[in-house]
């Protein structure tokens, strides 16, 4: 018995001869909150529809709780979905919507009543039992959709961008509520979003999907700090990418040329001298020094401040390098530090904490 509740093997799906999912392999662990993150049209909904059984794959298999369900119809899969558009039944009131799943299973009337009330209390909608979906706000509809899915006690709950229709504040609220709900119920959540911030803040693990491939699977920290590919790095958060030339390799040290300067980096990944590489840096990993503050500038890049955006606890800088390239840096305020008074046109030195850079090979 593995700890995986869902195992996906070599899953392929295409529409009209166009492959939408390529050889997807994914293990989802019992009780985890996993997020499928990717841009619009990358195949997130398709993957969920394959898991829920609303669509059957061209090839590959899906194993849920140890059983191969690839050919099993949706009603026998113990998986429920919160749809991208909620898909509440417009002709039924809130109660009947939520009771739908239990009625399909022919649960006894008293028990249905008990569980529906409990589910509606959980999402704080017990006062709206007799309303029709079109008499509810977006956030309320979304809660009904969640209650309607959760009430069936599925092994896995699939959530397809359930928050995308909500405004910013409600969205933040619902993120916390969903997370709390998942902890409380102990159900495995497969959450789909194209919002990277949402993915990072809510998930135990994130699967970054690009054009039908899982580019990277890992904890939010891993995908943010150690992206496997340029695409992942670019999709999640802001990143500065430097085309880098290897000059020399000494044991663990890489001597490289970045923006015309010779710098020394650590060679963690065993690059060879003839390889073309990129150096990636998150804005918050970049340190900006005033000219007067530094003496040894051997491992730094000269630059000029282009723009300064104060954001309360931090400041966003765009900085122009001698090659006219603009890079971005984020500096955090330190209570007893008043050196963060950058002005437009000021000459500075740029460096980063050694080892915080990510080095990736060119992808050909």
């Amino acid at each position, binding site marked *: 018995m593995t700890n995986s509740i869902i195992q996906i093997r070599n899953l392929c799906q295409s529409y009209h001869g166009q492959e939408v999912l390529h050889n997807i392999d994914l293990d989802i662990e019992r009780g985890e909150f996993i997020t499928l993150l990717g841009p619009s049209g990358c195949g997130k909904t398709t993957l969920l*529809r394959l898991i*829920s*059984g*609303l669509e059957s794959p061209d090839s590959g298999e899906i194993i849920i709780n140890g059983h191969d369900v690839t050919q099993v*119809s*949706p*009603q026998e899969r113990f*998986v*429920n*979905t919160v*749809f991208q*558009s909620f*898909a*509440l*039944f*417009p*002709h039924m009131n809130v109660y009947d919507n939520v009771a*739908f*799943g239990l009625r*399909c*299973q022919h649960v006894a009337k008293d028990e249905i009543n008990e569980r529906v009330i409990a589910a509606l209390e959980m999402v704080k909608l017990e006062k709206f039992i007799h309303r029709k979906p079109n008499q509810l706000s977006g956030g309320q509809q979304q809660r009904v959709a969640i209650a*309607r*899915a959760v009430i*069936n006690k599925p092994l896995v709950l699939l959530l397809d961008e359930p928050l995308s229709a909500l405004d910013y504040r409600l969205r933040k609220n619902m993120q916390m509520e969903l997370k709390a709900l998942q902890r409380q119920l102990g159900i495995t959540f497969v959450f789909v979003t194209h919002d990277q911030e949402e993915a990072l803040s809510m998930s135990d693990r994130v699967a970054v999907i690009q054009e039908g491939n899982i580019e990277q699977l890992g904890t939010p920290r891993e995908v943010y700090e150690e992206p496997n590919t340029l695409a992942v790095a670019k999709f999640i958060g802001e990143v500065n990418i430097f085309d880098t030339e290897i000059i020399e390799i000494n044991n663990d040290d890489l001597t490289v040329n970045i923006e015309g300067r010779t710098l020394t980096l650590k060679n963690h990944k065993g690059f060879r001298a003839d390889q073309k590489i990129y150096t990636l840096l998150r804005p918050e990993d970049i340190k900006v020094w005033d000219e007067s503050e530094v003496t040894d500038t051997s491992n730094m890049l000269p630059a000029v401040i282009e723009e300064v955006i104060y954001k309360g606890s931090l400041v966003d800088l765009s900085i122009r390098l001698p090659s006219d390239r603009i890079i971005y840096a984020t500096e955090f305020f330190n209570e007893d530090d008043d050196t963060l008074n950058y002005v437009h046109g000021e000459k500075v030195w740029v460096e980063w904490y050694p080892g915080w850079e990510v080095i990736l090979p060119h992808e050909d």
Partner: protein
Amino acid sequence: MKTNILFRRISINIIWLWIGLFSLLPLLLVFVTSFLSQGTNQFISYHFSLHSYAQLFSPLFLEVFARSLCFAIVTTLCCLVIAYPFAFILARLKTNLKPLLLLLVIIPFWTSSLLRSYAVVILLEANGPLNSLLIHWHIIDKPLQLLYTNFAVVIGLVYSLLPFMIMPLYANIEKLDQRLIDAARDLGANQSTVFAKVVLPLTMPGILSGILLVLLPAMTMFYIPDLLGGAKSLLLGNLIKMQYLAARNWPMGSAVSIGLTVLMGGILLIYWRFTSRRDRQALV
């Protein structure tokens, strides 16, 4: 802008004039006539009388009415049973042939329905194609008497009225959200539950308007029973026609017409009460 408003005023007024002249005025005349009595020399004599209305409740008329209703109901059910799957498949087709297929449904509208009824006569004749085919396949060995039976009348009515059932159903099913069906299946509904709990309730407005559009004309289409039912199937429509043209009893014909109009009005009213504004708008 101004000419636009002017144009709208004029066209609306013309429509009103049209309805008034060719719909309201005749109805008014019929209404008045129904309260007069049958004349000896002229069609009507101008004496107020409720005689015609009293006649409406005579066993003969009630029988005709009951028979008409029966025919209309059978016709409507047949239309519904045929049209629903048809409209469903048509609406769910994932091809760009849809408009063409829909056109094929509509084309018969462009031919006179009287002509189409003659076509049915030819089909059902003793030595017509249907009988020949059945004999050819050795299903029967001598021609069936199909023409001039109730069966023929129902066939004729269904054939003429089927598009009126298909169109509203199609319009309704076309708007049915596939995601709701997906949601039902996801929640554990099997095919029949999906149909009974989701598809059927959501297409009810289409079904109701289809019924309305078929049931009412089915009671009054006089030429179809005339042509296909011979003298045997006397329906309300035939009765009205007979009163006017054969018996020359205009007040009686008018009273039957008014009775029918009131009945239809009643059914429409019920329909109005039991459908929401949104349902009705969904059909247009």
